[in-house]
């Protein structure tokens, strides 16, 4: 037998004898013979391999990727090259976490359950909210779930979205909104600061405001700018019985006031930056935190603390009556499994960093990003696209050919920023630069020098 099958020929013979069968094929007698797969199809799938060949194949493919492992990355836009402490990989890679399943049987799953309880606690702390769920797929679909939650809670259909939301998130919202018949409308930011501001709701018609379920903003937003006026905006939402959701970067919690403390009703986000490498976009980690009053509408798994028969502390999956396996078509969401192992990574990551470590990471990001902003503008290749306060990422207007710039940077071991035209065709000259704690002033200098050289050649 090939693959991972332990059966010897003798085993198979013994088992078939017990069953009174002559051949394994007899077990598949219910399948109409004309439906059986052809040998040529199986051959086309491949003839099997061994570990040596497999490693070679994947290594060869890996060699054709240019990554942050070899180049200093200034690429962000929702996926960041933050450091992951060594202990995260080693602990999260433990068999007992890796090869268990959704903790339906609490008595043999206390490890996973307690870890999720701690994850929920940490997420609530770093968002300033009362409760959190056990994770969702990614930052984009978590925001879409927030939208569905708000529509159900308010029984309204209109969702107002900041124009500085990540365009891929906006596209995912579009998918889910279309299916549910929800109306998405756009709130425009101040072009000078790229901030939405406290009075954004005045952009809506009276009709839209009456039907307004949720206002969605991202902070720091897609232009890297930290939103202000959230408190006033939340108050304006609540006055009209609408909710406010913020898509939040958890690393920013080390420096900035928390969206929950500012009055948001739902905080979602992408947790990749706290414990997981870029990984070509996945697996990442969606999180969702909310006000207590929204508990029964939260999608996905939730872990609660209780006691066992002997009065000892125990953790269980709870409030399951909302879920698909009980409510079927009346469930709050169809989500079953989520990203438990990635949530565990974040739990370990935040446990290691603690408040001081998270603050240091955020402080370093802020410091280096501002240094890079200054140097890149001084290079002559860029001007500032906006004057808004930014955290670890900023948007520039390029006066050089950024495709050529990124080629030269890569040749020098630097992965340049994002040419925004790839995601925002209407902004072909804009350039988004992310700077994490893994970057150094030296890398920033090299980046600026290459930009200056190009600017000199192009006469920018």
């Amino acid at each position: 037998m090939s693959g991972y099958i332990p059966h010897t020929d003798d085993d198979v013979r013994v088992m078939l004898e017990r069953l009174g069968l002559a051949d394994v094929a007899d077990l598949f007698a219910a399948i109409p013979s004309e439906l059986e797969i052809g040998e040529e199809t199986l051959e086309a799938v491949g003839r099997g391999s061994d570990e040596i060949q497999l490693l070679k194949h994947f290594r060869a493919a890996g060699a054709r990727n240019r990554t942050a492992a070899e180049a200093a990355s200034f690429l962000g836009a929702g996926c960041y090259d933050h450091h992951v402490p060594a202990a995260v990989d080693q602990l999260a890679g433990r068999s007992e976490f890796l090869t268990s399943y959704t903790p339906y049987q609490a008595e043999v799953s206390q490890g996973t359950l307690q870890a999720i309880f701690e994850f929920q606690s940490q997420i609530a702390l770093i968002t300033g909210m009362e409760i959190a769920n056990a994770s969702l797929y990614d930052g984009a679909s978590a925001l879409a779930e927030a939208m569905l939650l708000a529509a159900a809670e308010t029984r309204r259909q209109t969702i107002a979205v900041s124009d500085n939301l990540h365009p891929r998130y906006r596209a995912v919202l579009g998918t889910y909104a279309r299916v549910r018949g929800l109306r998405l409308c756009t709130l425009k930011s101040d072009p000078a600061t790229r901030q939405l501001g406290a009075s954004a709701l005045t952009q809506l018609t009276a009709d839209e405001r009456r039907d307004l379920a949720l206002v969605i903003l991202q902070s720091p937003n897609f232009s890297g700018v930290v939103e202000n006026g959230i408190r006033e905006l939340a108050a304006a939402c609540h006055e009209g019985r609408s909710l406010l959701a913020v898509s939040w970067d958890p690393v920013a919690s080390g420096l900035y006031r928390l969206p929950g403390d500012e009055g948001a009703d739902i905080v979602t986000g992408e947790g990749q930056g706290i414990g997981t490498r870029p990984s070509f976009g996945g697996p990442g980690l969606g999180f969702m935190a909310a006000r207590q009053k929204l508990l029964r509408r939260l999608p996905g798994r939730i872990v609660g603390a209780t006691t066992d028969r002997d009065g000892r502390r125990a953790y269980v999956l709870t409030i399951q009556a909302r879920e698909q396996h009980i409510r079927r078509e009346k469930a709050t969401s169809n989500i079953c499994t989520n990203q438990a192992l990635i949530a565990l990574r974040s739990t370990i990551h935040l446990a290691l960093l603690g408040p001081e470590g998270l603050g240091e990471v955020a402080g370093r990001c802020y410091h280096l990003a501002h240094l890079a902003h200054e140097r890149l503008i001084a290079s002559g290749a860029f001007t500032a696209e906006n004057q808004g306060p930014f955290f670890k990422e900023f948007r520039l207007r390029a006066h050089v050919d950024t495709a050529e710039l990124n080629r030269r940077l890569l040749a020098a071991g630097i992965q340049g920023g994002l040419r925004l035209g790839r995601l925002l065709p209407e902004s072909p000259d804009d350039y988004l630069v992310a700077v994490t704690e893994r970057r150094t002033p030296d890398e920033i200098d090299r980046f600026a020098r290459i930009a200056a050289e190009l600017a000199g050649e192009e006469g920018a």
Partner: protein
Amino acid sequence: MGKITIDRGLARRQIPQLNEASVPGRRGWKLDGASADRAALQNAAAADRSLFADTAPALPELSELDVVRHFTQLSGLNHSVDNGFYPLGSCTMKFNPRINESVAALDEFTGLHPLTEAENCQGILALLHELEEKLCLLLGYSRFSLQPAAGAQGEYVGLIVIRAWHEDRGDHERREILIPDSAHGTNPASAAAAGFDVVVLPSDEDGCLRAETVRKAAGPRTAGLMLTNPNTLGLFEHEVQEIAAAVHEAGGLVYYDGANANAIIGRVRPGDMGFDVCHLNLHKTFSTPHGGGGPGAGPVGVRAGLEDFLPGPFVTRREDGSYAWEEPAKSAGPVHAWYGNSLVLLKALAYIRMLGGAGCREASGMAVLNANYVAHELAAYWQLAKPGPVMHEAVFSGKKLRDRTGLLTLDVAKRLIDYGIHPPTVYFPLIVPEALMVEPTETESLETLDHFIAVMRQIHDEMEENPDLLREAPQHAAISRPDETQAARRPVLTWLQQERGDS
């Protein structure tokens, strides 16, 4: 045969929470040279400073050793495939080969940013394209979207593709999805999430869906039918071709829930059975680890003519042999910020490459042999939900035993824990009273199955001779049975709520 002694269960054990172990000032990780950063923060512009918080979030403060011990000890409270038999029906808890982990953990993949220009990530694009090709071959489809991050998201995508296809044809009246009563709860939940009304179809006496039932229910409002084959009773839906034809005749599409694909892989293809759309759970069929509840991956395959409605982008191979992203023309829309759980996809590809086509066929063969062996050896003790051969899992009913002894299937499940075996899925499918659903998978040996069978028979004896052993089970676990009512009535979801004594 001698009595089996209990030597594999866990001891009662509690581990303090991170917040309880916290000591102010303790550090587990630090960044060198943080003072320069602090100076930069103090010199920040007023607009920035007005946004800063006065204090950091009150996360616990621990040393690295504290953290390492905490999570190492927590891991010891879990049952996992790697430390014991895990016959959780419908979840396909097969062995997770370690080479898959090794290849997916290469820096060249984990360090790769999703917005890397295509010319700089040809390697991973080639692998993703290769996976898509192999899935198309194995399942009988024209294209797969690898984007859905889990089976449930795959179902959602499959259904919105069906919806988009109807609407593209100007057919806006098709609001209903037909689903048999034996289906996973996720099916109706996904159909509702995708904006459809659910019409439940009764299974027949033999546990299968009749084409006649479908014919009567299908009509101009039918968008499609969702079916898993083999179904949740572990039975092959033998009228599947007629069922598909009936739906097609009524103008609907047929959806294959790939939850049970481990029974048929390399033997029969959903595409050939008449299913237009299919999702797979790579964490079941293709051996990627379940991770305590994710990350999984739920790719969606479609037959020719439906490709344009899939979420984008997907990878195409150009004539010059290079790979590029391509957006489908009439996409129902993306459901993920990027391309799904890329690293999970790589693990599944490693598995398929390792087995090859013939190996996949052998895997389903042994999965079905194992399930039938367990069904056969236990049938005299637990009533099979439906008599006769099964596919990859065996469903038993504990109703007669309950009526005789007063003991529930739940008690049997908890007693298995004492023997170091993870309980099978219980109380599902809903149409079987006191259901007990055993899926051994192909990676378990005859010795493991024989041990499980012996334990189950011994528990059967205990039900008569010493029922308290079941009522008080598990004794050999970190906790005794938890109070779920209290948990749901007075939810305590965070440290803070716990400290405040929320009730």
